[in-house]
């Protein structure tokens, strides 16, 4: 018993009460986010363990992700290069990048739906900031993305493609992605805890989005008229702010305007929902 761990007072004074006023709801939601950020180490560990568990006992571990992405990109690349009559040296690097980035977005949207429902045992047995589970989902998906980046780099090396200094312009886009991902997770995570039939709806929306968004086909294939309409597709704007710089192009101003507008709408929606839903999530699970 001599080694017993001494108590750590994680909070000296807390108060839970029916929160009715807007300012109080906002204050509590801010506190939730703050506490969640402070637990970043736990979020990181949880996300990392999620990945480790998926591939525990397999020889390649998480690099199965890399391998399966590589196989899919090369198979699709050769096929679609023929179908779309594209130069393979030009098309394959585009496809590798698009496919990996889209894979990240699609998995993130889909997994944000189960953020709170999969954490039910924890939520029901200990008080934790809900934001912790949002960061966990983000960490997990960023780790998957990091494994898949290997495919992009490999394809770029094989075909001698290099985005140049413009590639750095992808960084602000990636930052926006992270913030949007957390907002989306709080929104969809709570919404899906309340309404259990959202997940299949979200998945079918993402499937349609995959085909109407230039992921496997190039925006230029639409012709000038079509390209002008693309910014109305939020998925296109979000994808393009990161993809265009990595292809060595300057990102279009309209695309950034669109991405910021959609992001602002998302943040507003997510915050409005989370401040109201936060005290109820435990009851919904």
């Amino acid at each position: 018993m001599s080694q017993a761990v001494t108590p750590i007072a994680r909070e000296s004074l807390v108060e839970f009460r029916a929160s009715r006023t807007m300012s109080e709801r906002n204050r509590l939601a801010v506190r939730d986010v703050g506490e969640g950020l402070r637990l970043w180490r736990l979020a990181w560990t949880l996300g990392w363990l999620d990945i480790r568990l998926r591939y525990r006992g397999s020889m390649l571990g998480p690099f199965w992700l890399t391998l399966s992405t590589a196989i899919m990109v090369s198979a699709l690349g050769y096929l679609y290069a023929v179908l779309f009559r594209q130069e393979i040296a030009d098309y394959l690097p585009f496809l590798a990048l698009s496919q990996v980035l889209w894979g990240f977005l699609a998995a993130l949207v889909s997994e944000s739906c189960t953020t709170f429902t999969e954490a039910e045992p924890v939520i029901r047995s200990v008080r934790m900031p809900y934001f912790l589970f949002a960061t966990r989902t983000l960490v997990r998906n960023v780790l998957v993305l990091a494994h898949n980046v290997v495919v992009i780099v490999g394809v770029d090396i094989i075909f001698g493609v290099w985005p140049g200094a413009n590639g750095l312009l992808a960084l602000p886009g990636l930052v926006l992605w992270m913030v949007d991902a957390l907002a989306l997770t709080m929104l969809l995570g709570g919404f899906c805890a309340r309404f259990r039939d959202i997940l299949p709806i979200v998945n079918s929306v993402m499937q349609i989005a995959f085909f109407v968004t230039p992921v496997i086909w190039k925006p230029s294939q639409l012709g000038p008229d079509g390209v002008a309409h693309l910014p109305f597709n939020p998925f296109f704007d979000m994808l393009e702010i990161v993809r265009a710089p990595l292809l060595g192009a300057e990102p279009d101003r309209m695309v950034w305007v669109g991405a910021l507008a959609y992001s602002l709408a998302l943040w507003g929606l997510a915050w409005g929902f989370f401040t109201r839903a936060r005290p109820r999530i435990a009851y919904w699970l």
Partner: protein
Amino acid sequence: MNRALISVEGVSVLFPLYHGNARSLKKMVVAAASGRLGSDQRHRVVVEALRELDFQLVSGDRLGLVGSNGAGKTTLLRTLAGIYEPAIGRVRIQGSLNALLDPSLGMNLELTGRENIMLRGLYNGLPRPMLARLEADVAEFAELGDFLDLPVRIYSAGMVVRLGFALATAIKPQILLMDEWFLAGDAAFMAKARSRLEEMVRGAEILVLSTHATDIVRSWCTRVLWLDQGRIHADGPADEILTQYLGHPLPPLESEPLGESATADQPPAA
């Protein structure tokens, strides 16, 4: 460190009951389109799990919760732990708190024992140097040896219980909330577990224990709250309330009351 305090003022906890209909967005939308959403709102079935509870606990209090199944004991523990925020009223908690509600809290059967220990430490917000001490303490008590690096899934039932128990009792809070599952377990293990649990109970400034085992309540608790259908039916000194609750005089106690020694080594509450 401040003295521990629990203050419950006019707390009600309401559970919305979601039948198949309310859980589905599709049916909500259809109901709204056909103009039935309003009636759905009004007719939503709500279970009043806790109704207008009022009580205060200060440092040195050891409260036993008794009542039949469904009286709201576990819901009250969850509310004190901050998991359910009350629909009406307020709960104030001062001091570090540990709630032993679920034996498998944070235990992932696919992870190794060591990883589970680390996770529990992180859930409790322990800094990194503490994690090593936590691991040493749990490993020593649970006697898992080399199994610590194997997934919990392959442990024997007894090993899982030992690990869960060691984990739950390794972090010592000012306020300890405990559900009755904790007192279940095979006799051989309980003999060993008992002293560790009693040490933890003694170390806590406030204990809230929910159980059907009246013997434990008598030896550990100084005060008893009798819940009935979410309301406080009676609240007072342990022996007095238990006599009412059981409906017959209490037999003489076999073991030494724990509360006496616990309050003896603490300065009186301010």
